[in-house]
Each structure stands twice: as C-alpha cells, then as structure tokens.
C-alpha cells in the first residue's frame, strides 16, 4: 500500500502543514498573539471579532479592578501554571507586563475579582487556540 507521502508526485513535506482551511502554524500563532485573530484568519470573521471583544473586555475589567497579572514567583510552583494561563492572552500580556509595567494592587478592593478576570481572559484565549487548531484540521466547523 503506497502512502501519499512516499509518492514522487506528492509535494515535499514541511513542518508548517497546510490544511484546506489554512496554515496550521499561522492559525495557531495568530490565535495566540491576538485573541480572535486565528478565527479571522480562518475566515470566521464575526466570531473572531466577538472573541476578541470578550477576551479584551475581560482583561480590561481585570486591569480596572487592579487584579494580579501573574508572574512566576520563586518557590511557588503553582505560580508557573497561573503565569502560563495568563500568558495565554498573548500580546496583551506582554503589553501590560513590559509595555505598560502593569502591576495589580493587592490592597485594592477588587484585587481578587480582577485577578479572576485577568486569568479568565488568558484561559479563554488558550481555548480559542485549540478551537482554531480544530478548525484548521477540519475537525470542527
């Protein structure tokens, strides 16, 4: 049984596999960098814009409430997970952390709420990355 990869007529293999919907690497990277951009790249424009708005609103509310934007704390392994979750929001995380030097206010009344909103924004975008992955591979509409 001849596999398609071994056929002389088949295109050369590359790491960035192109599926009918689009390029998987571009879809996943864009989905991570800007919330909703992966869906826009995959021609789900309205859904992409809606996801962008939802994630950004979550992040903005979190910042307004002075929540904690997680970063790794030595001796606290769970902070690694929380940081990865927060980094899931992509570009906004790095803009807040390194561009705007955002720091939450632990004494603020909305600190815990804000932290939940910020972390949720990151986790939402992680799910969007997986969704874009499924769409590009044709497993989801």
């Amino acid at each position, binding site marked *: 049984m001849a596999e398609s990869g071994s056929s002389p007529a088949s295109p050369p293999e590359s790491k960035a596999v192109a599926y009918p919907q689009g390029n998987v690497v571009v879809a996943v990277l864009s989905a991570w960098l800007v919330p909703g951009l992966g869906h826009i790249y995959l021609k789900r424009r309205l*859904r992409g814009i809606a996801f962008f708005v939802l994630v950004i*609103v979550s992040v903005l509310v979190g910042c307004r409430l002075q929540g904690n934007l997680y970063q790794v704390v030595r001796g606290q392994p769970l902070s690694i997970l929380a940081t990865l979750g927060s980094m899931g929001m992509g570009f906004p995380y790095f803009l807040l952390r390194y561009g705007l030097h955002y720091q939450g206010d632990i004494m603020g009344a909305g600190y815990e*709420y804000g932290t939940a909103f910020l972390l949720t924004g990151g986790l939402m975008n992680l799910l969007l990355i997986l969704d874009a992955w499924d769409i590009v591979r044709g497993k989801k509409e």
Partner: protein
Amino acid sequence: MLSHFLLMVLYALLVSLFFTLLWRRGRREQIQLFLQIFLGMVGGGLLVAWLMYPFPSGPPAPLLP
C-alpha cells in the same frame, strides 16, 4: 461603582457568551446554552451564598470603588 453582585453577573455574562459562541452554531441552541450557563453561574453563586449565610462571617467586605 460596581457591587460584588454586579461583578459576578458580569463575569457570568462574559463566560457564558464565550462558551456559547465556542460550542454552539444554531441560534436556538446558542440561546439555550447561554441561559443554562448564565443562570447556572448566577443561581449557583446565590445558592452557595445562601448556604453559607448561617456560618460566622469575617470582617465586612470592602466597598468597591
């Protein structure tokens, strides 16, 4: 500006909208799932608060700005 209850409602709204758009395509199914998640979160929060009511409380929660 925002009360604890309003923040809970806002959070439930964002999360339920997100999962509705992520998991459902048809309008009818979307409304159904949205209501399930939203009412589940808000109602569940109120239920837990009601169950905790008899327990001794700590210092009063600070007022949000």
